[in-house]
Each structure stands twice: as C-alpha cells, then as structure tokens.
C-alpha cells in the first residue's frame, strides 16, 4: 500500500509539470487558435537561460526570474514577428509553424549549448522529507509550490483583472475587440508572453530531475497535449486537472503494466485521451460556447 501511495504521490508531482505546460498550450490556443507544438522547446530555452545565468555567477532565484522574463519577451517577439501573420483559421499553416518553431529552437539550443545533458541545480535544495513511509524531495515540494503559485497568479490575472478580461476578449473575438478599441496584436502578444512565462516555470521545475538537454521537454510536451485534451484546452482548471491525471495514470501504468515504463508511458496517456474524447469531445472540463439560437 505504501508503494502504491508513493507512486501516486510521484505521479502527481510529475503531473504538475505537464499541467503547467498544458496551461501554456491552452493560453496560446485560446488566443491564436494555434496548438503551439514549440511550447516545450520554449520551456527548454528558458531552462538554458536560467542555467547560463547561474554559470555566469548569478544566484539561482534571480537567474530563474531572468529566464521567466526573457521567455515572456521571446514569446511576444515570436507572436509579433511570425505568428500574427497567419490567420487563425489556417490550422494547417499554424501547425506547420509550430513544428518549424520546435525544430528551429531545438537547433538553436543545440548549436549554442550542445546536446550533452547538463546538471541543473535545484532551486529548492536537496533535502528529503519522510512521513508515514512516504518520501518527498524538496525539489518535488518546491516544484508543486512554484507551479501552484504560477497557476494561482494566472487564474487571478485572467478572471479578476481588467488585463485578463481584455486578453480573453481579444482571444474570443478579435474583430469585435478591435471595434471596442482593443489592439489585438498587442493583446495577443501579451497572451504569448504570459504563456511562455508559464512554460518557463515548467521547464525550470523539470530541469533538475530530467537533466538539462535540448530534448528534455519532448515527452512532457506530448503529455501536456494529452492533458489538454483530457481536461479540455479551453479550461484553465481542466488543463491542470488533466496534467495531474496524466501524471498519475502514467506513474501507475508504468509501474503495474509490464513493459510500459519510461517514455512508452505516452501510449497510456493517449489511450486515456481517446477514452475521454469518445465520451466528452471537449474534454472533462471543456465547454462549448453557450449561444442561444
């Protein structure tokens, strides 16, 4: 029983990374209609920036702050420089653009920092807590706290502030928003910046355990896609629940289904996606817009 509880706990801890990445996917998707396949690579870039700052002698927390801000700026630049030229209804072009950005960022990271895995210092120390036979590392607890705080901030910003209201308005109906005086390019850039900041947190939380490398977020991105589908990409709560569920399911599946460990877990995650979308196509928490006929 203790082993099972430990697996559940570890799964949920891993799930917060998927949840953060899925949240970033959701923010971009709602804003620009783009399933941003480069979100994982953007998180990798953030982690490398933080690592490079520590190598330059900057303490870990300021380095993380720099990486998050740099990611937000990079996101805004990518939207403004490339994405805004592709109309939201051109799903094919947006998909291709996502792949191009993924491969391009991966290549840049590999050229600048190499492909060998590097040790990323944990910002939360290296202590281990034991209670009732269960084991929790400071990295796990700190990761949950950091991702949780990020999600809380995002929830407040999106639902309780004028900034969030305007951002959601532009995302929902750019033309109407423009008639009201909202500059859609500016607000969608802000949306990309917010998404990349959240993605940066995911990358920084994942790096100490996964090991920093250009391919570090490949599997987490797939898991985040599965999480977004399970929870409903239109729901901020849904993507978080989806991420935690995927973490949980893959941890349990990897332990108890023979041969399904490691990266093969992704099969289990997408099997869960199929099961959910057959019953609820918009995801567990996703909803179609209410429009009275």
């Amino acid at each position, binding site marked *: 029983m203790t082993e099972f509880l430990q697996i559940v706990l570890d799964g949920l801890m891993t799930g917060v990374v998927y949840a953060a990445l899925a949240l970033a996917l959701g923010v971009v998707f709602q804003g620009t209609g783009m399933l941003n396949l480069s979100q994982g690579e953007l998180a990798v870039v953030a982690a490398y920036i933080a690592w490079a700052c520590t190598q330059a002698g900057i303490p870990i927390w300021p380095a993380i702050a720099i990486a998050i801000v740099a990611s937000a700026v990079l996101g805004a630049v990518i939207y403004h420089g490339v994405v805004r030229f592709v109309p939201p209804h051109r799903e094919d072009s947006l998909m291709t653009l996502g792949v191009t950005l993924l491969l391009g960022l991966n290549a840049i990271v590999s050229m600048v920092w190499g492909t060998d895995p590097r040790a990323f210092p944990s910002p939360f120390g290296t202590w281990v807590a034991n209670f009732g036979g269960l084991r929790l590392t400071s990295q796990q607890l700190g990761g949950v706290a950091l991702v949780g705080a990020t999600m809380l901030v995002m929830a407040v910003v999106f639902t309780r502030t004028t900034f969030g209201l305007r951002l959601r308005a532009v995302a929902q109906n750019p033309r109407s928003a423009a*008639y009201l005086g909202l*500059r859609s390019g500016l607000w969608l850039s802000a949306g990309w910046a917010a998404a990349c900041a959240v993605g940066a947190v995911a990358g920084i939380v994942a790096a100490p355990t996964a090991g920093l490398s250009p391919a570090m977020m490949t599997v987490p991105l797939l898991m985040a896609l599965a999480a977004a589908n399970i929870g409903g990409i239109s729901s901020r709560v849904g993507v978080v629940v989806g991420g935690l569920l995927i973490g949980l399911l893959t941890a349990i599946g990897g332990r108890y289904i023979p041969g399904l460990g490691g990266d093969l877990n992704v099969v289990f995650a997408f099997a869960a996606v199929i099961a959910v979308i057959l019953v609820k196509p918009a995801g567990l928490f996703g909803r179609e817009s209410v429009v*009275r006929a």
Partner: protein
Amino acid sequence: MSLLEIQNLRARYGRVEVLHGVDLNVEEGSIVALLGANGAGKSTLLRAICRAVDTSGSCRFDGVDLSGRSTAAIAHLGIGHVPEGRGTFADFTVEENLRLGAVSRTRARSRRETDADLELVYETFPVLREFRRRQAGALSGGQAQMLAVARALLGRPRLLLVDEPSLGLAPLTARDLFDRFTGLRDEWALTVLLAEQNAKLSLTIADRAVLLSRGRVVHDGPSGDLATVDAVHADYLGASEFDLSHADARTKETR
C-alpha cells in the same frame, strides 16, 4: 462641417471590389439611414469606415483623416460600431461585455464616470441590469442587440455605426429598439449611421436616407423624399412592400 466626410471610398474583399467610389457626408447630431438590398454594400461601408476591410479613398471624421489608422485606433477617435450579428462576447457576463465597451473612451475617465455611464445604460435598458450576471450567449436576440448597442454607448462615441439591428428580431422587439435610437441620440449626443434592410422601420427615425445599390450611392436626401425616387422603387423598394407614411410625417416635422 460634417462630422463624417467620405469621398470616393472603395472597398474590396480580396480581388472583389464591393464599394465603387462612395461619397457620403453625415451631419453631427443626425440619424442617417443607409438602405439597400442584400449585397448592396451597407455593412461593407460601415466596415470600411472602421478600416476593417481593404479600403481606399478619403474618409475623415471630425476633420481627422482615417486612412492608415487601425480599427482599434478609429474606435479611440470616437466611432462606435455595433456590427451585424452583434459581436458580443458569448462567454462573458452582460456586465463584463459592458465594461469592455469603455475601453475606447476618447478621454481617460475615472472608474466613477464609467460606473455612472453604466448606471445610465441600465436605466435605458433595464433588462440588462436584470441579467447583468448572465452569460451574453444566453440572452435572447433582442436582449443581445440591446447589449451590443449599450456596450458601444459605454465608449462614449460621437458617431455610432449600427449594422442591421433588426436582424432576427420579432417586429415588436425591433420597433421597440428603433424607438430608442432617437432618445439615445439626444441623451448621449450621438450621430447615428444606421445600415438596415428594413426601410420602413429605419425611415421612421431617420433624418436622411442614403440608398446603396451594388456598391454605389443611388439616392441621398431627406428620408421623406425616398418615395418619389423612381430608381428607388425600381431597384429596391417596390411600391407594395413599403409604406412611407411614417417617413413623410417625420420629414414634415423636421422641415
């Protein structure tokens, strides 16, 4: 000087030109009905004023050239647009929709002033106060149209462009909505350019009528004169489907 001066305005969707050199002046404080059959270019003209379509030609608002400005920047100059289909944010509450309307206020105003305008809007459209916590997508057609107009008012525009407000509304609801425009014009110091297929309804409130046909202005004059234009009957109105009695009465009053 006219509040809105349009000269040789052309608009296109891709390679298809829809407006072929429109000239139009709108006097401050007037209600101008923009009439025409489906495809005449009414909605496109309103979009062209807001630079929401590919446009060429001259368009000046209060002496300010609108060319080269974005749709959002034009809203900030004081042009409100209630688009065809209302354009409300279905997932937002009524009050959230209304507060978004205040984005384009031409001068920075305090939250207190916005709240005062919100109260004014609720007095004009009490049903919106009743449903202020309801999702906009759950409103009826008439309520949604009121919300769209009210939201535009929150921006304190000087010129209000309204596109097919009677579309999909029951005759009595449409009548009720149109009856409010004259009062709104006076209370909010508005100038209204109203694109509408329902000529009879429009002419009961309009000072002037402009008839569009295939992207060109074919008549421009006092609303009561419309009945005497042969081309109007031949091209659009049809003698049997149109009763100008209301428009005649209004024209006599305003002369």
